[in-house]
């Protein structure tokens, strides 16, 4: 057992033996380290002003990812390199992304700028060949700017991040990789005492053991939700068990049956696997939260929290995903849809941990469509999230799995519409009517700040129609205002 937090900072290992379990990384930077370059804009991971970069080893290679330091708990950076806006300028001057922002007038009030700089730093290190404006927009979705209108920032990104790697961080990457590898011990880390602690187990066994002893502890995965309990609800969470270091918990792989996602896999990692099932998964996942949120947030966390507005569960339910839960008492699997019992209530017992999600591939006759409807295109919680998996033979729907988010207290299937759709012919719009009217009765959605109940109902119906139109025409070219799923149509993936 290690009793200190260790991370790499400006080339040196920092070791901390005392901090409150819910100290955020941002508070550490601004109040303890007194590095005030990193700003607090919203304190909930939505504006990106607090963005910093974390360097981590992935398959032995150094990868920089942007994270929202305002909702990241300090203990989560164990074993990482922490890079902030103050670190980029070298003896030769500004970093290329900083210089490009200066040259192209990318800052006005400047308050969001350090966050943009750090997001761009990670984009720079992603070293993406053929970087497009759309790639940049997606990468920057988690950074809000109220002054510039983004055009000069995006131009700066295209300018600075298309020229290949040539900065001090790239030059010393090998050295950094060695230092990070040295920090990766196989020891559990605990800072604090038995009453108040931040515990980061390394093994599954140790996780279950400690959780068994402290069933009142809070399991922390990406902190993109739990972080807000701390910063907004001001909850005291004296016992934190962090899942990010548990060996194997984040592992994903694919086999004949489909894809198995470790519950601790971040969206960024999971996306790489899931997009091979259907392009719509990629389209939707790239709009979940932001780059920062997807780098921290996990698919498992999104499920285990039982949020009625998560975007993954409807898609996974439509695909027929199963989950695995484990505790000291053993393991069990169940279909994802049975996990959600009622608003805020999941089928999970004391001491039980969600360990993996198994997602089957689409059958030969199956057609999948997913749509995320929100006020704003990027980084917005859905008003309605819909996923359709239709089995079609000879132009006739044989069976359907349709799941919605935002329409009920839990992610829920549209059973009436599913039944009514069986036998519908794709070429005959009249045969869709039954299902289009059945969906009206499948849900009793609520009105809130995201949408009214009647809009939600209209959209549910509209999306079913859209899915049928697209599947019938084998095209989404003139059915989507943003992009299309046929990557080869017209030679370009317009988004």
């Amino acid at each position, binding site marked *: 057992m290690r009793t200190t937090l260790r991370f790499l900072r400006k080339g040196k290992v920092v070791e901390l033996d005392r901090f409150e379990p819910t100290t955020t990384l941002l508070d550490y930077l601004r109040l303890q380290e007194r590095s*005030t*370059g990193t700003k607090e804009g919203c304190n909930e991971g939505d504006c990106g002003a607090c963005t910093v970069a974390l360097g981590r080893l992935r398959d032995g290679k150094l990868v920089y990812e942007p994270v929202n330091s305002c909702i990241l708990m300090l203990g989560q950076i164990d074993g990482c390199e922490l890079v902030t806006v*103050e670190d980029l300028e070298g003896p030769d001057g500004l970093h290329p992304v900083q*210089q490009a922002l200066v040259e192209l007038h990318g800052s*006005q009030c400047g308050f969001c*700028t350090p966050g943009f700089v750090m997001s761009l730093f990670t984009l720079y290190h992603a070293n993406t060949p053929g970087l497009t404006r759309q790639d940049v927009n997606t990468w920057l*979705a988690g950074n809000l700017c109220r*002054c510039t209108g983004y055009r000069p920032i995006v131009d700066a990104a295209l300018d600075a991040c298309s020229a290949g790697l040539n900065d001090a961080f790239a030059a010393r990457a090998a050295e950094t990789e060695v230092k990070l590898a040295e920090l990766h011990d196989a020891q559990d880390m605990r800072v604090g005492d038995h009453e108040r602690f931040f515990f980061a187990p390394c093994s599954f066994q140790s996780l279950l053991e400690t959780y068994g002893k402290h069933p009142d502890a809070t399991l922390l995965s990406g902190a993109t939700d739990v972080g807000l309990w701390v910063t907004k609800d001001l909850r005291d969470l004296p016992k934190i068990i962090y899942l990010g270091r548990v060996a194997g918990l984040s592992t994903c792989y694919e086999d004949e049956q489909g894809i198995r996602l470790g519950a601790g896999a971040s969206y960024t990692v999971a996306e790489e696997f899931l997009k091979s099932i259907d392009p719509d998964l990629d389209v939707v996942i790239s709009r979940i939260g932001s780059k920062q949120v997807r780098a921290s947030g996990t698919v498992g966390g999104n499920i285990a929290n039982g949020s009625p507005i998560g975007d993954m569960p409807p898609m996974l339910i439509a695909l027929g995903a199963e989950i695995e839960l484990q505790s000291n008492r053993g393991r069990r699997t169940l279909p994802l849809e049975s996990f959600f019992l009622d608003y805020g209530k999941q089928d999970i017992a004391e001491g039980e941990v969600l360990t993996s999600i198994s997602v089957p591939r689409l059958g030969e006759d199956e057609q999948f469509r997913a749509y995320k409807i929100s006020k*704003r295109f990027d980084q917005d919680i859905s008003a309605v999230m819909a996923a359709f998996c239709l089995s079609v033979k000879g132009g006739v729907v044989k069976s359907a799995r349709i799941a919605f988010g935002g329409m009920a207290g839990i992610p829920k299937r549209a059973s009436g519409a599913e039944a009514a759709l069986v036998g519908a012919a794709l070429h005959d719009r009249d045969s869709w009517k039954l299902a289009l009217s059945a969906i009206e009765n499948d849900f009793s959605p609520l009105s809130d700040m995201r949408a009214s109940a009647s809009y939600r109902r209209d959209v549910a119906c509209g999306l079913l129609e859209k899915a049928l139109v697209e599947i019938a025409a084998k095209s989404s070219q003139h059915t989507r205002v943003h992009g299309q799923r046929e990557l080869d149509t017209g030679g370009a993936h317009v988004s």
Partner: protein
Amino acid sequence: MSADLLEKTKKRSSSSQVVGKPLKHDSAQKHVSGKATYVDDIIEPHGTLHVAPGYAVDAVCGRITKVDLSAVREAPGVVAVLDASDIPGVNDCSPVAGDDPVLATDRIVFHSQLIFLVVAETRLQARKAARLAQIEVENETPVLSIADALKAEQTVLPDYEFRRGSPEQIIERSERRLKTRLVMGGQEHFYLEGQVAFAFPGEDGDMLVQSSTQHPTEVQHTVAKVLGLDDGAVTVEVRRMGGAFGGKEAQANQWAALAALAAHATGRPCKCRLDRDDDMILTGKRHDFMVDLAAGYDGSGKVEAVQIELNSRCGCSADLSLGINDRAMFHSDNSYYYPQVLIRSKRLKTNTVSNTAFRGFGGPQGMLSCERLMDGIAIRLGLDPLDVRKANFYREGANTTPYGQSVDEYDVLAKLVDQLEGSSDYRARRKAVEAFNAENTVLKKGIALTPVKFGIAFTLTHLNQAGALLHLYRDGSVHLNHGGTEMGQGLYQKVAQIAATEMGVSLSKVKITATNTSKVANTSPTAASSGADLNGMATAIACREIVGRLKTFAAGHFEVSEEDITLRDDQMLIGGKPKTSIKALAQLAYEHRIQMSSSGFYKTPEIVWDRAQVKGHPFLYYAYGASCSEVVIDTLTGEMKVERVDVLHDVGTSLNPALDIGQIEGGFVQGMGWLTTEELWFDEAGHLKTHAPSTYKIPTASDIPEIFNVALYESEGNPAPTIYRSKAVGEPPLMLPISVFCAINDAISSLNKGVLPKLDAPATPEAILKAVKAIKAGEGA
């Protein structure tokens, strides 16, 4: 003075002149490296305490029956808990009317109205303690909406109207008439840096406040008033704000007052920085409006008479609602001549947070109203809306506004719109849009080209004044200070460019310094787009004063004529030939006891406005612009995408084209947010539920159009005597994206020609789908 200054300006060679160059923001390097210091970044002296605001969690409106703060006082780290009885001076932080208590006493009139404050060792302790209060309020039924307030006949200020002729009769008698209603939402500022103030107590009760405010003088006065001090005992300083947009014009006062009150009570430095959710709940927004429009028009779409009833939600107090609603009226004509007209304004009082200034200051709401009118007339007549707009433009013989000021630059408006029509390829694209719509059932496209004419000057005439303070040091460097504040718009840089040009020194020799009430006093807010117009001119005047003294001295000393002396490129030139450096000249002048400091004072000429008589010339000039937007909507979901935008905007002779383009693009996107994704949503009880960026959606990078062409109109210079013949640029671009809203309207109207879509703002997916459903059912607005 100013005309004289300009004549001299014109004569000056422009080659080495710093003014007009597309220089970077003065703080750009500091912004990108995290070195730019905002109020919360100032190093905290040992012993600094933190302030959190305290309010009732749920109550909206009613008499306060119980305030039990014992748990708050006992919470860890708490040093003091203060309420209204601890205020030594006057319990008010309003800008004008005296109707905004710093802390409520007997009753609250909107949700979250402050009742107490907590002062604690850490900010987290203060925030946690504030939630422990036990407060009970005898709940009354609040008046929340515009409709509620109209019914209750509650206003914060008297009604006001502009009238020419008898439009009511003309409209009634007209063969063609349009009557419609438009509802438009408000807007949260969402400056990235939230409200913050840091108060440092001094000796004799003096107070120094570092505040994120557009109006340091008003913060100074408010702090003095609340603490019962003379204004002279309070100094307010602001180096920069992390955005403001009007939200820190009047509503930075309260947080400075709280910090100062806490510092006064504890004798320790106290900082008050609001958490984002508190910021969004506790501070006012852009006014939402419900507008009733009526017009009579001829077969070509030319209006004969117009009646516009502007009803706005002001919230619980007057704040700046007088000027805001007046400006909505001043812009209800936008660029159009109304032969007969009635514009009436009601300033409604509701039990919601007091709405306040926001970039455009009512102008956008007035302008959107008349653009709805133009669209309506065009749709009814089956004409291209651009043709109807052009038919109604101010023109020769028809150039008097409803408030009596004549529009002299109507030719600029016409030329600018013609140019944009050509460069955006409007006519061909309109045909392409029609072809697309004929082929598509799910998606529909729309296009619109709309103009902007925005009046420049504070309509409260006395605010049109500014001061500057300049020092030339003996090493040839210059200290620049003026009353304008830097909120990201690049004012400091523009004014520094003016100072460098006037003083003949290189820009690097001009030291930009923080706005400070002890250097330049009695300043106006940096608002109404006037920052560069006013402070630039005051600075030029101060520079002229110093340069004049130097020239007089040098003429005597070197026995040449004053006219032969020029200061340029850090040199003194005599007869065009370098004689000596400005550094050497300054040293010499010092030795000869020449004063090398000067203040400069400027008041805008020509403007007069008699509000009571509705008579005068409230604006010095108008700024013009136009934009063309193309959108695509999804008729199944209401989703929308802006595909292309072309902008042409008139900044006169630009002081700095790069900064001006930045204002235009930024203003466009901010205005687009107001009209599309940004929705303020209150629940039935009166709680704002969109109080964080998770629920309130300002544009992100992907919302800007793939094709976004922004150009400056090739101006012959502002005909009005402004600094270097420039035009103000802060607010006017915010109204350019009205073309986005009109293009959405156009796309919806393609579903049922001849019917005016029932589209309200913001045009969220839900609002669009609602209008789509209605128009498919044959219902129009």
